[in-house]
């Protein structure tokens, strides 16, 4: 990427029907998806019929009855895809899953406030707001307003039957808000009838084929914002 990210993560989100109780670190160890040592150091937040959540050094997993989320902040991110693909391709093959999201989130610094404001105005110009534009500017720096969140979506994609590519850009809440920008890309895939999925073969095959391309495309998209610096 044009600017190295200060904080970033990748998450894989699956929507369907899950049994959260299954997703215990010890199950992953028994299945050979985690080593014994990984299983031992996993920190369990909750394991319950409605929700399970645990985390380990490079990974966090949360499973609700209709949503599975696996997240990492540590490259190489393909390790996350390998884990999810193996989980559902080798073990939980009958899990009905209708939607997939491959998400790339990045917080980066543009160095100074003036640059951040300039980028904000390029993405969302104030002029169309007419008289209000002056008021958005504020009379003193601490009361300066501006774009809080901007989303741009592509729906016509030739690599999926249904879905979208969505980028959201906001001031960063994790870095110094005067100089930080947060960009989040949601690369979303659906099967033909996502509310009535039969098994998870199609979605997991999509994940397997698309993950690397998706991350590269998301980073390219985030770069479109970074190069405005």
């Amino acid at each position: 990427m044009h600017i190295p990210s200060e904080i970033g993560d990748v998450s894989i989100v699956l929507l369907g029907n899950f049994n959260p109780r299954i997703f215990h670190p010890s199950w992953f160890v028994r299945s050979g998806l985690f080593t014994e040592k990984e299983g031992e150091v996993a920190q369990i937040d909750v394991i319950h019929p409605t929700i399970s959540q645990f985390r380990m050094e490079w990974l966090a997993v949360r499973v609700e009855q209709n949503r599975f989320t696996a997240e990492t902040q540590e490259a190489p991110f393909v390790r996350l895809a390998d884990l999810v693909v193996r989980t559902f391709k080798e073990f939980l093959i009958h899990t009905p899953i209708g939607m997939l999201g491959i998400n790339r989130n990045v917080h980066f610094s543009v160095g100074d406030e003036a640059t951040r404001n300039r980028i904000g105005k390029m993405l969302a110009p104030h002029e169309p707001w007419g008289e209000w534009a002056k008021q958005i500017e504020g009379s003193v720096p601490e009361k300066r307003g501006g774009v809080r969140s901007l989303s741009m979506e592509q729906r016509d994609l030739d690599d999926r039957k249904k879905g979208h590519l969505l980028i959201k850009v906001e001031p960063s809440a994790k870095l110094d808000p005067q100089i930080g920008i947060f960009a989040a890309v949601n690369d979303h895939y659906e099967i033909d009838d996502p509310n009535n999925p039969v098994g998870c073969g199609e979605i997991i095959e999509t994940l397997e084929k698309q993950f690397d391309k998706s991350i590269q495309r998301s980073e390219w998209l985030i770069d479109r914002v970074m190069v405005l610096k």
Partner: protein
Amino acid sequence: MSTAVSIRDDEFPAVVGDTRGIPPTRGELIRSIARNGLVNDPSSTPRALAVSFPSVFHKNNVAVATDVERVGLGWQELLPEFPQYMSRQENSFAALQEWEGYVVEVGNDDFTARLRDVTAGSVYEDEEADFPVDDISESDRELLRPGAIFRWAIGYERTRGGTKRRISQIVFRRLPQWTAKDLEVSLLEARALAAFLRGE
């Protein structure tokens, strides 16, 4: 006492349908639990749940809960305070450049691999490098053997305290086993390629 609870689904923004990596809010989790049957179908739970919904659930006719009286856990106990971001990892590591490689030869202290530059979009492994075995984490060392596939990333690690340092990380891939369908597809591709080479 009856334990009927009705939730008007159309009044709630559904948790499903959103694959962004944003964890649900506490309220969404509560609604999710209600919608997913723990409340509507007590028999689906191993223990009856003491679900006493907060008053907000009765306001604005968003949900109508009547005679909710159970024994056991309270809904608050079901819902620990989840962080906005799940990972809470000490460090984050962003790659500046990434290669995929396969192991060609394994020595006592190092191993040789052929590499493909993933960041540059290379299709073929056109680089070769030697790596110290010590660079591999203990959990991955058992995977080190000729033919094993790994990712090598170079980038910046940022600690929670804000310190940034350049590091490199090797992670061996734990790829899924080939399924019968995978083998079938490969066989068809191989046959098609053989036919092409024979000029058919």
